[in-house]
């Protein structure tokens, strides 16, 4: 059973690395059009952000895929605190039927 699990996990990791575009949600492929952000309109973090976009899509991607789950996690934890404070039980659900 353990061997089988190792194989499945290996296959998932391999598929994740080799076939990144297959599990995408929604719609047609992006066109090969090159879009350049206009940095002249911005200052501060927005200027840094647009410059990062123009200079390297790779680093722009890295920052984006870190920010999205981190922000999601923060919102999730904050909501946990708020709902526990209200008095809702977040660890169980009584309904067990289909």
């Amino acid at each position, binding site marked *: *059973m353990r061997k*089988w699990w190792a194989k*499945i*996990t290996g*296959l*998932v990791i391999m*598929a*994740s690395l080799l*076939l*990144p*575009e*297959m*599990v*995408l*949600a*929604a*719609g*047609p492929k*992006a*066109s090969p*059009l*090159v*879009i350049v*952000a*206009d940095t002249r*309109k*911005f200052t501060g973090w*927005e200027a840094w*952000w*647009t410059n990062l*976009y123009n200079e390297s*899509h*790779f680093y*722009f*991607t890295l920052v*984006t*895929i870190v*920010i*999205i*789950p981190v*922000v*999601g*996690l923060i*919102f*999730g934890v904050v*909501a946990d605190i708020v*709902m526990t404070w*209200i*008095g*809702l*039980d*977040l*660890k*169980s*659900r*009584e*309904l*067990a*039927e*289909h």
Partner: protein
Amino acid sequence: MDFFYVLMPIAGVSIFWPGLIILGVGVGIIGGFFGMGGAWMVTPGLNILGFPMAFAIGTDIAHMAGKSLISTMRHGKFGNVDYKLGVIMIVGTVLGFEVGAQMVMWLERIGQVEKYVRLLYLVLLSLIAWMVFADVAKKKRKDREAVAAGKEVDKLSTGIEWHKTLHKIKIPPMVTFKEAQLTCSAWLPIFISFATGWMAGILGIGGGLIRMPALIYFIGCPTHVAVGTDLFEVMISGLYGTATYTYKGRTELVAALIMLVGAAMGAQVGTVATKYIKGYGIRIAFGLAVIGCGVSVLLKLMAKWFPAWEGLLDGSATVLILGLVAAMSLYIGIRMVIGAKAEVAAKKAQISVAK
């Protein structure tokens, strides 16, 4: 009025940010409640807000990844996520998507892609709606028969039970899924996820709309576990989508984060609402959402058949989708508030009795 508009750094357009938050709340509620990404709802909404289409898909997927993570966390705490089942299904989903995507390319070469895709979508939505309501009708009949025979109504009774037949296929390895409370051949979820991935690949959608009912009717998951496990899948595909679309320069992170503010609140409401609504309540609401989605696809098809009415029919499809999102969100939100109030009141009563 400038306060209500924010300039998108990459797309270079000003967007009405409260609109993004409202859209996020609606999609968050429905996504958390039904276990889906909701791209079919977001695209028309972003269109109305004046979002450039070049960025719409990537931005939608980026917010979806964050929103699904929040919903998965919450569903996980309720014991609604079967991670083992989710990991196994990723294999089939990935391979199915590839085959589906190849088929779309073939259809594109013969120039029939849009017609076939929309028709397939319509057939599929009709089948799902039929499946849901046939299931509900069968369960009600079973319950009525039990009452007529003087027996007690089984609280765990279900209508359609195709999964029981599929579970008789015992090709090794057999796997037990604790949260989903079932044991079956590992090939069953792999095959089902391949089929749903294939259809999602052809239709160009995330697949939650197809995977959620497939988890219930073909694999035999309880409704709540189907919702949670599907969200886990959506989260992984969403993170992938974010990476690849961003690498192509098609993600507007500022818009995604603004939407995420709304979606984070909505996802909590939608997910917690599943605590107070029975499995069959979720199935019926899902069936109604599928019917609404089907009608909007039909309107889009009719707009192509009757060019003179194109504007009206396209507009009607968008209004229908957004109206559906608003009505469903309101219903789920109200049920969540009523359920939460009752829970808090019951707790207070318990404490006062103990004193």
